[in-house]
């Protein structure tokens, strides 16, 4: 098995051949992991439900019908109805849209900005590094919910602002990650060599340092997606997330709390859905990480 340094040094065909083989082996490993496959399946279903919500949902999630108030689940309404008579199944389906939209967008933004910050800090070093990293430290020093609440309190609630709040929370992790990778990569003989050939800094940064960030970022994303969804649920539960009538799993739980004694399904079902979604993401993520771990070879 080739060591990592040797792989770096072998730019070109050899590297490509080795990584292609690795990728294939990783894929096979992943497929053998039944739990991870199950997770992938469930996540896939939820994502499809999110994308095709208008087609899949039996009714309009905001359609109120006080005649059906608090109805328990039955054939007509598989998940029952809430206090305004809205169909909980449809709301759950649209809720998955909210969850995945927010998860994807916030992680996307956080990765892009975190990458930029991390690479700049790692490569330029000096006081730029210090300032950027201290700022990241400050962001990390906030207990996780507090930062998001503070931001939402400042710019107002709603879908977009929740995305902003969650991305700000995620940025420091990616910044630190990339900075770490960059710091190690900087020392590598490869970069030294490129430099001695006269390659300019931005080129080095983009072409060589950037790709080395990919794997750790990818791994981190698999961890963060679940966390982002939980964070959004928490924010919506407290009233700081998406606004009515948009259904978020978290706000559905908040609305259902009052009725816990008379209609427990309103608060219970969305929570189950969150658990299943996050569990699947975790299984999938775990399987992915295990599959990609070169030490399993």
């Amino acid at each position, binding site marked *: 098995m080739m060591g990592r340094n040797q792989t770096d040094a072998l730019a070109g065909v050899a590297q490509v051949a080795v990584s292609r083989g690795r990728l294939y082996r990783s894929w096979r490993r992943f497929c053998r992991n039944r739990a991870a496959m199950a997770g992938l399946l469930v996540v896939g279903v939820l994502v499809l439900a999110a994308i095709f919500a208008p087609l899949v949902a039996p009714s309009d999630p905001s359609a109120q019908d006080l005649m059906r108030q608090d109805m328990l689940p039955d054939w007509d309404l598989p998940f029952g109805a809430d206090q305004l008579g809205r169909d909980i199944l449809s709301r759950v389906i649209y809720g998955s849209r909210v969850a995945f939209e927010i998860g994807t967008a916030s992680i996307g933004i956080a990765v892009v900005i975190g990458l930029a910050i991390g690479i700049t800090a790692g490569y330029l070093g000096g006081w730029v590094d210090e300032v950027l990293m*201290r700022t990241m430290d*400050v962001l990390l020093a906030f207990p*996780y919910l*507090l930062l998001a609440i*503070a931001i939402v309190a*400042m710019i107002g609630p709603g879908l977009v602002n929740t995305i902003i709040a969650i991305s700000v929370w995620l940025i420091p992790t990616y910044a630190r990650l990339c900075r770490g990778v960059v710091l190690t990569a900087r020392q590598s003989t490869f970069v030294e060599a490129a430099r001695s050939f006269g390659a300019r800094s931005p080129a080095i940064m983009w072409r060589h340092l950037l790709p080395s960030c990919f794997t750790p970022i990818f791994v981190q994303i698999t961890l963060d997606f679940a966390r982002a969804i939980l964070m959004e*649920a928490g924010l919506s539960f*407290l009233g700081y997330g998406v606004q009515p009538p948009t259904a978020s799993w978290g706000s559905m739980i908040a609305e259902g709390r009052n009725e*816990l004694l008379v209609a427990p399904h309103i608060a219970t079902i969305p929570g189950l859905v969150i*658990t299943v979604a996050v569990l699947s993401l975790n299984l999938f993520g775990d399987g992915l990480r295990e599959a990609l771990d070169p030490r399993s070879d």
Partner: protein
Amino acid sequence: MRRYVVRRVLLSVPVVLGVVFAVALIVRLTPGDPAIVLLGQGATPDAVAALHRELGLNQSVIVQFLHYLGNAVELDLGRSYRSNERVTDIIATALPNTLLLTGAGLGISLTIGLPMGIASAIWRNTGLDHSLTGISLLGLSMPVFWTGIIMQWLFSFELGWLPTAGIGSWRHLVMPALAVGSYTAANFVRMVRATVIEVMREDFVRTARAKGLRPGGVLHHVLRNATIPLVTTLGLQVGLLLGGSILTETVFAWPGIGLQMIQAINGRDLVLIQGLVLVTALLFVGANLIVDISYVFLDPRIER
């Protein structure tokens, strides 16, 4: 060694200051005039102006912040806008409750997490491992506020074993601590399992085994080397616990700083918010400091 400690402490100070300033800024930028919130049905322009003067809201952010810092050093964190109570008094009553909750949660996570993680690692890839890992994954996936609500429904409403909310006896602590600790416990199980497996793989363990050391002795070696990652995780968990306390305290009406925080934010009680954030940041940074410093004792490779 002392230099290391001092350096670490000094580096933490700007971070804490940064946090407080960030909050002061955020809170100042938040739309809404606390004077109007406080005066409610009585917010005439004269009353608002008077309250502004009284609360010092008519000065610039920087001036206010510097005043605040100056007072903070003397342990005067101002008075809450809503109740006029000293912020230090409010924190003094609320903080012990949160520490109690966090401590209990941590205790539960350790008690559950350590043995489960070790068992998982030792009997790796067996049915036991899979079920334990599964349970811990479940713990990680359930939103803490939902876990709390379900526990309330089950243990309070249906079974009547425990009181639903509030504080006052050990019974009141059980559910919130379980809720707050379940996430951490799950993390512990995974971390412990991974670390122990990692360490068990190391050459020296194989050597020890080959030499015929009893499993107990090997375990002892393994645990010793696993301490550092464990302590790191511990430090990380404190942050999660403090953050999770906001949700748990809201669900269980536990009178700690998390609950105070939500009320302060809703009531635009800027002074109280700043004080609470300062304390939380100090706790968090402090916990990390303790973790960092304990490395010095635990890892002989670090220079004394």
